[in-house]
């Protein structure tokens, strides 16, 4: 118990003490260029550690925090945010598919819709003035905090009858829980409504570079009735396609800067490996509250920065 408390205290202390702004102030105006990439790498490493136990992708933490506290333009932060989310999803995708935690037939139609609309979101996001996107980002993050704090996912949702579209697409399966060994057949309903929701999810992902796993999961689980673990796995897999198309738009518009994108991706992936190891040793509820507090703070910061109140 004492060890667990110490681990959580260490995480809190790391996040509280490590302030990129303080680091830059310490270094002075003539600070060498490498201060920021190093600070970014360390920040992403820490974010990666808490992202896994909190059950969120890296992008949703990365974009508001890095855009709020680092000197990079929002274009580059969103481009890197998409790559952080994409690389995490790509790294997990094969294992999720192989283990049956992601379902290809469930994911492909939804991903097709969302990846198409993510192109639109990226084009809109890069065409709008940065201050407008910053305000919208702040509002979106505060909305995400509200969704994450209020939604209670269901482990095995009740689906009385599969809809016709899902039957035609073969969106069903048998989920074997690795922890208990139990098998549960599943089917889905409200597929047309979910497809419409994925249009908006794609736009948000492309516009803000957020990844959008936070939105995929409740739609799959609560709207369509997919078991929670299959929802989580399929949500992550969908990001491999949605974020790929949006990432290309950012890349071809010059909004991917290697000095920002590469340390972010590498830091987040290394941190996530640590996060996966400590997953069973830290209290997930505490980490989740920490993430919600971080997002609330970063969302307010983005909103106030966009409004010119806290620049």
């Amino acid at each position: 118990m004492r060890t667990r408390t110490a681990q959580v205290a260490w995480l809190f202390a790391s996040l509280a003490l490590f302030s990129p702004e303080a680091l830059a102030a310490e270094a002075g105006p003539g600070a060498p260029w490498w201060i920021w990439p190093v600070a970014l790498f360390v920040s992403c490493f820490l974010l990666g550690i808490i992202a896994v136990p909190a059950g969120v992708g890296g992008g949703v933490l990365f974009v508001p925090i890095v855009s709020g506290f680092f000197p990079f333009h929002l274009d580059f932060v969103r481009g890197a945010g998409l790559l952080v989310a994409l690389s995490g999803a790509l790294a997990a995708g094969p294992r999720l598919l192989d283990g049956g935690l992601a379902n290809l037939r469930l994911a492909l139609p939804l991903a097709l819709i969302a990846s198409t609309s993510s192109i639109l979101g990226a084009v809109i996001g890069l065409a709008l003035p940065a201050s407008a996107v910053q305000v919208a980002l702040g509002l979106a993050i505060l909305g995400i905090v509200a969704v994450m704090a209020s939604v209670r996912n269901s482990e095995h949702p009740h689906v009385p009858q599969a809809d016709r579209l899902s039957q035609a697409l073969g969106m069903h399966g048998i989920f074997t829980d690795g922890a208990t060994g139990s098998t549960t057949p599943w089917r889905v309903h409200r597929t047309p409504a979910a497809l419409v929701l994925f249009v908006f999810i794609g736009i948000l992902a492309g516009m803000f570079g957020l990844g959008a796993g936070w939105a995929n999961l409740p739609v799959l689980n609560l709207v369509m009735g997919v078991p929670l673990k299959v929802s989580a796995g399929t949500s992550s897999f969908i990001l491999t396609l949605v974020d790929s198309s949006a990432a290309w738009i950012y890349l071809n518009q010059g909004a991917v800067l290697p000095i920002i994108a590469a340390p972010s991706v590498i830091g987040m992936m290394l941190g996530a490996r640590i996060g996966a190891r400590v997953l069973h040793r830290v209290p997930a509820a505490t980490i989740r509250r920490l993430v919600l507090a971080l997002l609330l703070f970063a969302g307010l910061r983005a909103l106030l920065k966009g409004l010119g109140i806290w620049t």
Partner: protein
Amino acid sequence: MDVSPDVAQKRYARWLAWGTRLGLALLVLGFIAYILGLAPHVPIERLPALWQRPASELLEHSGLQPGWHWASLVHRSDMLVIATIGFLASCSIASLVAVIPAFARNRENVFVVICILQVAVLLLAASGLFAGGH
């Protein structure tokens, strides 16, 4: 030969795993070359003055054009990193193409069409047709 639905999913997973491994390895190698200062197109020392500006201004100041212009400078280490990122953002295409025959053999024509459409969307996104800016 009967191809069960699981075959398509496993094949997709296999192709995605190899693509991702290769992409991430190339990204790390490219980035090492970049931070070692191996002939970048934009000198690293200039970046602090540029990364605070919109992407369109960075392109302007670095003599780059929106779209695939970066590919013509892939011998430069920073553009090499961009190429490895492009590879990562494209490795799903190979996986999608790889499962089309499995879906076709299984007579899942809807998924053959969905895979083709998804490849088309990714190619459209990558094409540079949407390159514009602020």
